[in-house]
């Protein structure tokens, strides 16, 4: 429960993309051959990082025949046939919608409850609230996948097996520690004067919270929502164990079923891999800053 001992000293997750420019310039800059070598290493590694993903996309645009005869070939006459097969016959269309529903539902749920909780924790100095905060933050390092068996029986008891709602509740709960951690740090940064002025004008706590505080912490809300999206979208064990019917599978489980049954249908598998990955790449493209902020939020732990 290390997280509980140090509620972040520097509340806002530092953004490494906006570190002071001065640090990079000036005398540390190497010139000449050293700098060229560094460039080669860095761009070379960028190729290593991206080429496999590029091959994944290119292979999804080729036919099985082309993939078998020339695995390294380029998609000279790209075809989307594999995507059509994956989307309908492979049921990736249904899996995609399930993933979207579960992920968005869970992110909305955990962000909503965590924002309210984080605000109260930041504005109350009662000892009970400190204990509760410690309890939430202890979840940051909790390997919750190890509790899959009791979760299974809990769900079994209340009829949440094979239910997307069940997954939403579970992931929503799993997101509470991280969201409370990041949002709490933000709320603590907001000075109390605004709320005091609003209270004098007669606004109750709920109104102050919804009309003044939420707009102020919008950047943190974006970080929390975007950053939680990724692990929920990608999670495999919980839907594997908790879902039964094919029509409710999320993408990772659907993918593993498809891979098991059609191991030789390479191009359709590649298309399935792309379908599973593309939303996250799109999300990263529009919200790079939030994802990076989320990754480095762990620093203050």
């Amino acid at each position, binding site marked *: 429960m290390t997280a509980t001992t140090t509620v972040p000293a520097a509340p806002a997750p530092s953004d490494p993309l906006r570190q002071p420019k001065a640090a990079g310039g000036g005398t540390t800059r190497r010139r000449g051959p050293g700098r060229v070598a560094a460039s080669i290493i860095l761009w070379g590694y960028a190729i290593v990082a991206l080429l496999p993903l590029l091959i994944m996309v290119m292979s999804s645009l080729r036919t099985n025949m082309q993939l078998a005869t020339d695995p390294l070939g380029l998609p000279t006459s790209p075809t989307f046939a594999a995507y059509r097969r994956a989307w309908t016959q492979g049921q990736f269309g249904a899996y995609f919608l399930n993933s979207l529903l579960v992920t968005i539902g869970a992110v909305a749920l955990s962000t909503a409850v965590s924002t309210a909780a984080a605000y109260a924790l930041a504005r109350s100095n009662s000892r009970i609230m400190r204990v509760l905060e410690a309890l939430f933050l202890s979840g940051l390092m909790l*390997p919750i996948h190890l509790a899959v068996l009791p979760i299974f029986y809990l769900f079994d008891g209340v009829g949440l097996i094979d239910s997307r709602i069940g997954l939403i509740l579970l992931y929503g709960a799993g997101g509470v520690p991280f969201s409370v951690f990041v949002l709490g740090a933000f709320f603590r940064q907001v000075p109390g004067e605004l709320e005091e002025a609003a209270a004098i004008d007669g606004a109750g706590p709920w109104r102050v919270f919804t009309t003044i505080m939420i707009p102020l912490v919008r950047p943190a809300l974006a970080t929390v929502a975007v950053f939680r999206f990724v692990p929920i979208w990608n999670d495999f064990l919980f839907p594997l164990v908790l879902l039964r019917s094919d029509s409710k599978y999320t993408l990772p489980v659907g993918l593993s079923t498809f*891979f098991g049954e059609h191991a030789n249908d390479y191009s359709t598998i590649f298309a399935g891999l792309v379908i599973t990955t593309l939303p*996250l790449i799109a999300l990263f493209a529009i919200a790079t800053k939030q994802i*990076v902020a989320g990754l480095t939020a762990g*620093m203050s732990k």
Partner: protein
Amino acid sequence: MRMRLGTAALFVLPALVLFGVFILYPMVTAFSYAFFDWQGTSRGAFVGFKQFEALFTKPPFTTDLPRALLHNIVFFLATIVLQNSIGLGIASLLHSRASTRRALQTLFAVPYLVSPLVVGYLWSLLLSPAFGPVNTLLRKVGLESWALPWLGDPTTALPVVILISVWQWIGFPVLLYGAALGGIPEEFSEAARVDGARPSQIFRRIKLPLLLPAIGTVSVLTFIFAMEAFALPYAVGGSTGNPGGATDFLSLLFYRTAFDSGATDAIGTSSALATLLFVVIFGGALTATWVLRRQERRLLG
């Protein structure tokens, strides 16, 4: 502005209920399961540590448990060495170039977004012995003898899984170390340089000690991640860790015990295994954090 306890409690309640029901309660029951006798899903008598004894005395655990544990430890150690050295190296190279740092950091972080399951399937296709692009490329450039069944051979499978995992996660240490390096005032290196310190000395004596908190964070998170690894080995070698258990991990063993074994006391033994894993993960993470904190204090005074 302070909030009254009653109001604060209302704000915290939804998060508390959600977190309590779906995370804390299953987590606590997970431990309790391990201390009872089980016949299918009905709980028998309290048996103390009998289930834990079974893990060390009964097949298949006598062979599978030490093997899986060894794989997790090798996986952790290799990952930590590679991630820290490559990550720190790349971050240092990036540090001296203000203009392309952002773009490169972003590129390196892309594989992090991809589901470990997708990464596993993708690489098993890329590395497939006959039709895989990797071996095709090796044959084309005359490295015929290197065109091995990388994931099919027990001797190469685990190292390849480690490399795949490092490939996926390297963006994380690059970002964290980048942020940490950006936080070190340039004056420190400047002063040392004026005093005649060589670049290697500046790195070892000034930057490395100041990077220790970041290195600690990466190491602890890598430990938790390595002990929990599930989706990647599942995709690469199935739930039995093919070939021949060469990619078996503790979480796979847990999954098999709980859901695939069909043994009547599956709940008891798998819960004992989960409890053991929990103690290792949580205890390990806590101890590591504690040791690192002490080191930091000693180094930074």
